[in-house]
């Protein structure tokens, strides 16, 4: 098959949805709604995350939803704020009603300092939500054993972290992500910690099926330009993965023929 054909046929499928873009984005931390919508459009992302909160009875909230729906984006509500499986299931059921989708990014991180996901509660909630018919995408540490358990529990994908949420530190879990990617029978979406386009490209070169980026775009000097940079990096990384990267070697391997023509001419 020609490479161009291969590229065109290269689609990501999660649950019942086909994605052309392998860059998923978050809607948090943008300075204003207009910039957020413009950045998400520029990213060409087809799946964007949202959160849920208790309505503030004193204040009117911005209508964040209308512009996202108008631009045809699929919404992925998260369970952020849930501290255990019970709360996460409750949050997912609320989110299903609020956003009319059975997709959920399952995240349970009881510790506010590092926001690291609780593996035990996440697995419990994943089993319960999958049984209730949710399309579950769990945010987890880069733990290959846990990822297999989540796959068995019926998760539609796994979302292992590169580094703590919002840290912009990049892929600190590379060795374990490689194992997860090698073993997975569901899509692997590297989530959290990707701080620059090169981090996203690296994840894609490693064979990740997609990445999720929020903070690095939202807090960039120019979020719209940064979202395009991430989109380009994700495409480049994916193309490199499909093209097949050359192997590494400790010793030099000459790129030019080492003929002795200089000596011969003396």
């Amino acid at each position, binding site marked *: 098959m020609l490479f161009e054909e291969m590229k065109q046929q290269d689609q990501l499928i999660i649950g019942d949805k086909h994605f052309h873009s392998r860059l998923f984005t978050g*809607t948090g931390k943008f300075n204003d709604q207009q910039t957020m919508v413009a950045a998400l459009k520029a990213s060409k992302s087809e799946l964007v995350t949202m*959160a849920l909160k208790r*309505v503030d009875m004193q204040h009117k909230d911005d209508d964040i*939803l209308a512009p996202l729906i108008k631009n045809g984006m699929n919404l992925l509500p998260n369970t952020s704020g849930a501290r255990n499986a019970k709360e996460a299931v*409750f949050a997912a059921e609320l989110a299903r*009603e*609020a956003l009319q989708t059975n997709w959920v990014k399952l995240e349970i991180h009881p510790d506010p300092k590092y926001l690291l996901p609780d593996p035990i509660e996440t697995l419990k909630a994943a089993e319960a939500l999958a049984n209730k018919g949710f399309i579950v995408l769990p945010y987890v540490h880069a733990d290959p054993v846990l990822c297999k358990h989540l796959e068995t529990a019926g998760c539609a994908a796994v979302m292992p972290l590169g580094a703590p949420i919002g840290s912009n530190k990049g892929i600190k879990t590379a060795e374990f992500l490689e194992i997860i990617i090698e073993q997975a029978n569901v899509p692997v979406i590297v989530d959290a910690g990707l701080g620059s386009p090169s981090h996203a490209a690296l994840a894609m070169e490693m064979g990740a099926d997609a990445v999720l980026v929020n903070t690095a775009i939202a807090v960039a000097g120019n979020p719209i330009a940064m979202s395009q940079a991430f989109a380009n990096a994700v495409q480049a990384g994916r193309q490199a993965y499909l093209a097949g990267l050359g192997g590494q070697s400790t010793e030099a391997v000459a790129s030019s023929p080492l003929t002795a023509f200089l000596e011969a001419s003396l």
Partner: protein
Amino acid sequence: MKIQVNEQALILPNSMNLEQLLVHLEKPLIGSAVAVNMQVISRSEWTQYNINEGDNISLFQAIAGG
């Protein structure tokens, strides 16, 4: 009728269902979710659920997040 909405006491002028409550509170219907006494009420049942005295109602709203 006295009820609780997001931990605040509220007196309703007349009996109403959940959808009417959201309209009464000037909250958007789109992007909202409702639980009564910690049970999530499906959107399709909002007009059928008539609020009872003492109900503890929780309102939630979709917001930006990662």
